[in-house]
């Protein structure tokens, strides 16, 4: 049985300078209430690991605008000119990672693997500074695991045990990130009695979830 955490209290758990894994793809499937609470609190210096920085005024874009991000490890910033401007001015240190490599590095961090071997990025600027490993005659880049202090994820619904199910394209990075952080804070749209989410529909087992945000008011 989890207790429901108030969104402000959840934001208070997160110290300055933490590494945050944040779910979402252009804001779809991002923990929007939690992001708003972080902006309201104003503590930053975060390293944010996410697919993208969304758009100004949406999802992770609000953290960019509020100046709370020191470093971003992301695959795409094309729809957020503020991130690009802050990267050029040096305010945000941006590491661009191919999307499939990013999700697998987080997965590796979450499932106890020492890294990922992928052909993606070979012969491009992504290869710089990395080891190339040959396996059965094929060349791969060695990509290292990523973990976070906190995973901030969104879900369609949770039950009282913290089991999560997701909706359509709002899965994206959320299920993988739930494995890869010391503390997992989940923001479900609805919270249901145990049993209301059938076992086959659970994509993130509740054992991974530390805090559930209380229902939306």
């Amino acid at each position, binding site marked *: 049985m989890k207790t429901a955490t108030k969104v402000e209290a959840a934001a208070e758990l997160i110290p300055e300078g933490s590494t945050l894994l944040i779910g979402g793809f252009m804001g779809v499937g991002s923990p929007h209430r939690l992001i708003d609470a972080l902006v309201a609190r104003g503590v930053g210096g975060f390293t944010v690991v996410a697919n993208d920085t969304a758009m100004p005024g949406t999802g992770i874009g609000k953290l960019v605008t509020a100046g709370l991000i020191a470093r971003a490890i992301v695959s795409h910033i094309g729809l957020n000119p503020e991130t690009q401007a802050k990267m050029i001015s040096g305010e945000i240190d941006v590491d661009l990672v191919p999307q499939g490599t990013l999700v697998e590095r987080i997965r590796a961090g979450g499932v106890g693997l020492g890294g990922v071997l992928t052909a*993606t990025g070979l012969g491009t600027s992504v290869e710089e500074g990395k080891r190339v490993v040959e396996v059965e005659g094929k060349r791969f880049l060695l990509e290292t695991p990523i973990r976070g202090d906190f995973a901030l994820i969104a879900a369609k619904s949770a039950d009282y045990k913290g089991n999560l199910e997701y909706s359509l394209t709002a899965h994206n990075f959320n299920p993988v990130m739930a494995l890869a952080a010391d503390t997992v804070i989940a923001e479900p749209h609805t919270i249901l009695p145990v049993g209301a989410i059938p076992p086959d529909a659970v994509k993130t087992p509740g054992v991974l979830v530390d805090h559930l945000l209380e229902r939306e008011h």
Partner: protein
Amino acid sequence: MDAKEIIARRVALEVKDGMLVNLGIGLPSMVANFLPDDVDVFFQAENGVIGLGARPPEGMEDADLTDAGGAFVTAVPGAASIDSAMSFGLIRGGHLDMTVLGGLQVDERGYLANWMVPGKMVPGMGGAMDLVSGAKRVVVAMVHTQKGKPKIVPECTLPLTALRRISLIVTEMAVIQPTEEGLVLRETGPGVTVEQVQEATSAKLIVRDAIQEMKLA
């Protein structure tokens, strides 16, 4: 018919019944509008759906169902929603039959540059590097020149997307197939001569047989 429609209608003929296809944002996404009725395929959007459908009616959008550009879409009967690890597993693992992407430059080796212009535009690679490395067929759909300057060049001056020879280039002026020997001109655009194609191309083109004018879906 404008250049983009010519390109989309020609690329549509590359899509075969039963394929799993990923269409990039912008021009490539137009290809879906021109598929013959007897071609039944699944479109993948890398943000997490196999079986991407048309735009929903105004006011009936689902906030949790978008394409990789963040535009609202629907899902066709038989669709599956997937997380990012599954999505890129399909892409890298050779399960994706074809990807259609835009391009900034393609060179005589068949290498593509499409993710950044140093000092000008750094959107990030998103899923492009994984798509170009992993898809069974890679079709580049782009206008032939950029402000009169050739985009099909002897060697890419922009950062490469992958060290992989792409399968086909489709522009409004030509269909060009990169091969071991170089770029082979296969078809010319409506009303375009071989000489005009060569004039708008700084790469060397191999012209072997009588060149047909391209058919359009």
